[in-house]
C-alpha cells in the first residue's frame, strides 16, 4: 500500500504555469486628482489572510490629512472586496493588519498614539491604545493567537523603537507594557521596525544610523522582558576610507518561512551607481544569529534602483518577495520566489500598466498568495489586488 504524505502548500507564485489560478481585482478607485492612495507601513504589513478571508488596509490623503480604511474579501475567485470600513475618527495613518489564530488584528497611528482593534467578521472590537506619544511608524506580526506590535517614537532629537503584545481575551483586547528594544544612549535613531515570532523567540528588526550610516539590527528573546543584545544583520560595505561611512540598509520586512526560518529583506545601498538593491538574510535560531546577505535582484534589474520590498511566507515551503522598479521604463511590480536558500529570477506582476508602485504581500496557510499595489494613470489611481492559488 502506498501511503501519501501531506504536501506542504508553497507560498510561491507560479505565473507561468497552467496550474496557477490567478485573480486580478480593483479594490478601490479614486478619480479625484486631489485624493491620494497610500499603501505604507513599517515592514509593509498592509495585507493579511487566513484560508477564509483576506483583509487589506490602506490610507487616503487629501489636504494633508489621512484617513485609513479596511476592506475584507472572502476566499475564492468569485468574491470581491466589501465596502471599505473607516479606521479611527481623526487623522489616521500607517494602518497595519495581521491574521493571528483566526482573528484579524488591525492597528494604526492616530493622534500620535498606537490604536489597535480586532475584527471578527465585519464588526470591530473595542479600540485600545497600548501606547501614546509621538509615534512615527508601526508594524505588526503574530505570536500564536496574539499580535506583536513594534513602533518607533520620537525620543529627544532622535527615535526609539519599542514593542508590545496584544491579545484578545473573550473578545476584549489586553496589552502588555511597552518595552525598549535597545539603548537610546547608544542608538539614537532607531526606526523602521519589523516584528515576528519564531523558534519560541520574539524578534524585532530595526535600523539605526548612529554609527554613521543606517545599519539593520535584530533584537530577540524568549519574551519581551528577556531580550538579548542586538546583532547586526546587514554587511557594511565601506566604499571610501576618506569620505562617508559606507553602505546603508533601510526599509526591512520580515517573514517566517519553512522550519520557522526567519527571512529578512531590505534595501541595500552597497551597489555603486544604481541605487538600492533588495538584499536578504536568514536566521535559523529565532534571530540570535544571521547568515550571509543574498542579493535578490537579477542582472536585468541591476541598472535601476529598487523600492519598497515586502516579503511573505505561510511557514511552509517557499516565500515570495515583491518590490517596485522601473527596469522596463515604467514603474512596475516585480517578484522573486525563494526555493530552499536560493532566490529565483525576477518576474513582473503588473504587466503593461503605466505606473504601479507600493506593493504589499501576504500568504494564506493554504498557500494562496495575495498581492496588492497602487496603479496610477491619467484616469486617476486605484488599488489593485492579485491572488494566485497553486
Amino acid at each position, binding site marked *: 500500500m502506498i501511503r501519501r504524505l501531506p504536501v506542504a502548500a508553497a507560498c510561491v507564485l507560479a505565473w507561468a504555469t497552467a496550474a496557477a489560478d490567478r485573480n486580478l481585482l480593483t479594490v478601490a478607485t479614486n478619480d479625484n*486628482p*486631489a485624493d*491620494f492612495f*497610500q499603501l*505604507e507601513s*513599517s515592514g509593509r504589513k498592509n495585507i493579511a489572510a487566513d484560508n477564509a478571508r483576506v483583509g487589506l488596509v490602506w490610507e487616503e*490623503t*487629501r*489636504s*494633508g*490629512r*489621512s484617513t485609513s480604511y479596511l476592506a475584507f474579501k472572502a476566499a475564492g475567485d468569485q468574491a470581491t472586496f466589501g465596502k471599505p470600513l473607516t479606521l479611527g475618527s481623526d487623522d489616521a*495613518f500607517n494602518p497595519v493588519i495581521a491574521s493571528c489564530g483566526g482573528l484579524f488584528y488591525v492597528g494604526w497611528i492616530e493622534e500620535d498614539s498606537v490604536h489597535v482593534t480586532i475584527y471578527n467578521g465585519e464588526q470591530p472590537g473595542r479600540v485600545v491604545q497600548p501606547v501614546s506619544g509621538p509615534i*512615527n*511608524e508601526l508594524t505588526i506580526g503574530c505570536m500564536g493567537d496574539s499580535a506583536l506590535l513594534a513602533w*518607533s517614537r520620537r525620543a*529627544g*532629537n*532622535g527615535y526609539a523603537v519599542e514593542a508590545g503584545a496584544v491579545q484578545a481575551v473573550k473578545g476584549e483586547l489586553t496589552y502588555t507594557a511597552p518595552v525598549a528594544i535597545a539603548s537610546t544612549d547608544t542608538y*539614537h*535613531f532607531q*526606526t*523602521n521596525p519589523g516584528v515576528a515570532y519564531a523558534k519560541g523567540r520574539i524578534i524585532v528588526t530595526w535600523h539605526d*544610523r548612529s554609527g*554613521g*550610516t*543606517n545599519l539593520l539590527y535584530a533584537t530577540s528573546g524568549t519574551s519581551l522582558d528577556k531580550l538579548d543584545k542586538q546583532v547586526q544583520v546587514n554587511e557594511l560595505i565601506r*566604499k*571610501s576610507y*576618506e*569620505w*562617508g*561611512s*559606507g*553602505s*546603508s540598509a*533601510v*526599509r526591512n520586512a520580515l517573514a517566517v518561512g519553512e522550519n520557522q526560518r526567519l527571512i529578512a529583506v531590505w534595501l541595500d*545601498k552597497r551597489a555603486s*551607481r*544604481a*541605487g538600492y538593491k533588495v538584499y536578504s538574510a536568514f536566521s535559523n535560531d529565532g534571530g540570535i544569529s544571521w547568515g550571509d546577505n543574498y542579493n535578490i535582484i537579477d542582472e536585468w534589474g541591476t541598472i*535601476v*534602483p529598487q*523600492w*519598497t520590498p515586502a516579503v511573505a511566507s505561510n511557514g511552509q515551503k517557499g516565500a515570495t518577495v515583491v518590490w*517596485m522598479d*522601473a527596469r522596463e521604463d515604467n514603474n512596475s511590480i516585480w517578484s522573486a520566489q525563494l526555493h530552499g536558500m536560493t532566490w529565483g529570477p525576477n518576474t513582473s506582476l503588473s504587466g503593461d500598466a503605466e505606473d504601479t*508602485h507600493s506593493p504589499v504581500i501576504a500568504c494564506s496557510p493554504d498557500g494562496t498568495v495575495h498581492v496588492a499595489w497602487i496603479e496610477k494613470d491619467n484616469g486617476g489611481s486605484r488599488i489593485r489586488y492579485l491572488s494566485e492559488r497553486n
Partner: protein
Amino acid sequence: MDFANTRLTWLLAAIVIAVFSLFSPAQAEPPPGYKFVRYDEGLRQAKADNRQVFVYFGRYGCGFCDKTNKVGFADPAVKAAYSRHYILVYVNSESMDRLTLPSGERITEMQLGERLNTLGTPVFFFLQPDGAQILKAYGYQGPEKLLEMDQFVQNGQYASTGKHQPAP
C-alpha cells in the same frame, strides 16, 4: 544676580546645546552653517517669498555627500551665493518622516526619492518658486561646479534650454 552663578548657568546651557546638536537629525546631514529646512516648508516659503529653491537630497553615511559638504559647501563664496539666492531644502533620502506636498498628498521623505527615481545620493535640484524644476545634478559637486550652477540659474540661462520640468 551672582556673576559666578550666571557664568555657570551659561556654561551649562552651552554644554546642553552642544550635546543636543550632536544628536540633532536636522543638523547631522546638511553642511553646517547653512539654514536648510524641510521640503514642504521650503516650498511654502518659496511660494510666499517668490524665491527659487535649492534642494539637497542626501543620505547619512554617503561618501559624496560628505565630500560635497566638506569641500564644496565649505567654500565661503558658495555659502554666500546659496544663502542669498535660494530657500535651502534638505531631504534625508532614508527618512520615514512625512512631508505634505503642495498637492495635499502626504508621503515620506524616502518616497520622495522614489518619485524622483534617485539613483543615488547626493542629488541636487534647483526649483522655481512654484516648484518647477530648473536643473538637476548628481554626485559630488566641488565649489567651482556649485558656483557655475548658481550662475546658470541666476543668469536665467536655463530659460533658453526649454528643459523645465514639472514639480515633483
